[in-house]
């Protein structure tokens, strides 16, 4: 297999970031990235996506629910 196409580059990104690629595959990937600025951007964005989503998806329990939870647990955990 020669240098990767953009599609092959995208297909292996998870394995690349998890360190699961062979040295040969990694060399093909890096050769492609050396010639393809859009894929360099793509890789950076793929890497950034989990962190961005994690921050966007952080939720806070509604206060009313927090009070209900506390009351429920107090009721369930009180000594018999």
């Amino acid at each position, binding site marked *: 297999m020669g240098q990767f196409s953009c599609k092959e580059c995208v297909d292996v990104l998870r*394995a690349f970031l998890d360190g699961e690629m062979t040295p040969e595959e990694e060399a093909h990937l890096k050769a492609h990235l050396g010639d393809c600025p859009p894929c360099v951007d793509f890789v950076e964005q793929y890497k950034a996506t989990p962190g961005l989503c994690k921050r966007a*998806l*952080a939720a806070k*329990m509604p206060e009313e629910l927090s009070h209900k939870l506390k009351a429920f647990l107090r009721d369930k955990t009180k000594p018999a």
Partner: protein
Amino acid sequence: MNTAAEGNSTAGMGGAGDAGDELLRRAQEGDTSAFESLVEREQDKVYGLALRMTRSEADAAEIAQDTFFSAYQHLKDFRGQAAFGSWVHRIAANNALMRLRHRRVVEKSEGALVEPGFTDLGILLRPPEQWERPADEQVIDAELGSAIERATDRLPEGYREVFLLKDVEGLSYEQIAEITGDSVPAIKSRLHRARLALREAIDQFYSEK
């Protein structure tokens, strides 16, 4: 699937630290106020995970309640080799998955995964947008946050749960396999496709700005 008492493997989430260890010790000795403090530390994360997995505030509320009650019931069995937070998050993930499995038969159809397009020669059809600054340094504004929430909710269930458990909760592939009953290769494949779909959604957001 794990039971609530199986708290003896480590998950990739932050521990509660020395203060958390002390609270846990007191809670295990029957100090209910210490248990309440532990709950307060974890309730937002447990609720958030349940909300994202089930997409239902009512289900998330019940899952949070069931999770902490289950944790309380098994507190004395908890061996403390994992952080208390990791342990309750895994209980919450199990509870959310069980609820999803039960309602799967009536689940409305979900959106197809959006993936990047390529030419016949495997060249990217559309170069990525410029996200201005490296995305991990960006402040999440409300619009981007909403776009990400919608894109996450649109992921097919099996993809959404893997993404949330791995990239948001920080569980290992093996832990996710244990919870979901799916194979590690299947989980890795779904994670990759979920990330691609979410990257596309963020890229789309910037292309429309």
